[in-house]
């Protein structure tokens, strides 16, 4: 499509811009979106170093340097929310991550096609229910006279308002995560399982390998690459704890174990209007995430030769 040749000798970027100008015109709304809703907030994060006042705007507000950061690092909340964020992330890595793998292995061992489909369809049903509804159900079931407590009472325990107990919050959070996501997240492993060469199993059976040995020596190694990729992705997201769910479930009584960085940002910033302070905390979270992602990627590139960039 070289109808008019740009003058020779012009900068190649300028030439490309002229050559593909209609493409670039199409790109304008997309770039505008990214500039306004992604890069402008990054610029706006400057207020973390200022004493933001809506009257003066971002530029006009006074610089305070690292005052908000110092405030935050020195506060009682700092260790609490850092610890909670890390503990909840690690718990979900340890308990939630393997669950769909186990489910996929189990479903893979079922011979009846019918039962396989029923089990799959039912286990990923909860994934389609909205978070608000899920949390509504959790709140209700864990009530002092909710279903879960009735079950415990049948077994002779006392009923208690579980969501009011700081020591139970994390268990409720993780168990309900597994309940909602196990089926859905197993899909990818089931797909990986289907691509394993069936002849390997036949050969193993000829050699007299038991089903358990087949799982250990053929099935698991077969899906190991998939597991590794999912694990890296998860690592990069380590501190992005599902704060929406936490905000729906926690209350002042359970802040001790439930409050994480993002829920703290939300509360301090939007409910208590500490905009600058809250931005400083948010910025801290973003930076940690970036560092974690870069390190996870670096490690995986060294160890695994698979990386995001």
């Amino acid at each position, binding site marked *: *499509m070289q109808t008019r040749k740009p003058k020779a000798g012009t900068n190649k970027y300028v030439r*490309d*811009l002229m050559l*593909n100008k209609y*493409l670039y015109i*199409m*790109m304008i*709304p*997309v*770039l505008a979106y*990214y500039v*306004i*809703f992604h*890069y402008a*907030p*990054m*610029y*706006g994060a400057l*207020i973390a170093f200022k004493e933001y006042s809506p009257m003066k705007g971002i530029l006009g507000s006074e610089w305070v340097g690292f005052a908000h950061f110092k405030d935050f690092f020195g506060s009682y909340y700092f260790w609490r929310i850092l610890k909670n964020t890390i503990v909840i992330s690690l718990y979900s890595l340890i308990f939630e991550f393997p669950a769909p793998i186990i*489910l996929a292995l189990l*479903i893979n061992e*079922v*011979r009846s096609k019918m*039962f396989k489909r029923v*089990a799959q369809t039912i*286990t990923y*049903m909860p994934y*389609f229910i*909205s*978070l*608000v*509804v899920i*949390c*509504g*159900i959790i*709140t*209700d079931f864990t009530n002092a006279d909710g*279903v879960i407590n*009735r079950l415990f009472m049948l077994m002779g325990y006392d009923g208690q308002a579980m969501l009011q107990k700081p020591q139970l919050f994390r268990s409720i959070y993780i168990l309900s995560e597994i*309940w909602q996501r*196990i089926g859905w997240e197993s899909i*990818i492993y089931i*797909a990986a399982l289907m691509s394993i060469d069936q002849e390997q199993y036949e050969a193993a059976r000829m050699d007299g390998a*038991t*089903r358990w040995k087949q799982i250990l020596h053929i099935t698991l190694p077969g899906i190991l690459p998939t597991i590794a*990729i999912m694990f890296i992705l998860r690592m990069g997201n380590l501190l992005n704890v599902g704060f*929406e769910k936490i*905000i*729906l479930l926690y209350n002042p009584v359970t802040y001790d174990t439930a409050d994480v960085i*993002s829920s703290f*940002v939300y509360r301090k*910033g*939007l409910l208590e209007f500490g905009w600058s302070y809250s931005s400083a905390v*948010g*910025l801290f*979270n*973003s930076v940690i*995430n*970036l560092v974690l992602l870069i390190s996870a990627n670096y490690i995986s590139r060294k160890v695994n030769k*698979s990386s995001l960039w």
Partner: protein
Amino acid sequence: MKKGPGLLERSFDIGIYAVLIFLVVVTLYPLLYVVMASLSDASQLIAFKGILFRPLGFSLEAYKNVMSNPGILIGYRNTLFILVAGVVVNLFMTALGAYVLSRKNVIWNKAFMMIIVFTMFFNGGLIPLYLVVKNIGLLDSLWATIIPFSIGTFNLIIMRTAFMGIPDSLEESAKIDGANHFTILFRIIIPLSMPVIAVMILYYAVDKWNGWFYASVFIKSRELFPLQLVLREILIANSTDGMSAGADAGDRFQMAETIKYATIVVATLPILCVYPFVQRFFVKGVMVGSLKG
């Protein structure tokens, strides 16, 4: 000799079935409980102390209350608007970006790609985003849940990969026929990428249907609340008072329970009816997403 492994095999099978059946029951029972409780008589449900296996009594009272609640209806209407307008904006913007970025030999695209991908790893945070939305004047409007989320960057990358797989020759011939980029995108590329488009529609639609957080941050007027915000009030903040008007305090307390369950059913049933039909697309979407790793 023959019996030994046979027995082992059988107990292996029994164990697997037992675990899976347990999982199926644990997954399904809470949902069935909600349905049974919603159909129960409020006073009987409150008094009941065991485990439900059928509705206690039978009453549609709760559903009557829910359906006559203006909040729920308004919520449905707002969510429908956000869903339709949102998915249209999402698809248009994502396709536009994916198309331009999938063109080969376009020098500036590398820079654009970097600008875009960087936003996946770093963001300014919630408060600065709030300030931007506020300054633009989107605060307290349904568009506040649509425009600031016009493109999901991961979706953009998936779509771009799909567009790159389409043979160049098709576009070349269209160009000779005098087609411009818009025509090529909407007449050739998109019709050829329907599977990916379908997956994108589903991903974006689920996002819009379930979204409550940014709505709760950006929207203050009650008549603009999407369904999920209305649900949050009823289910989490426990305010069913508006719906049991006319009943005295005791009845109201009892009715609140069944109303909550009926609300869950009314808000979730549509999705659970649709999902058996769309799940194969979702599965496809998981595959598409995983290819990128």
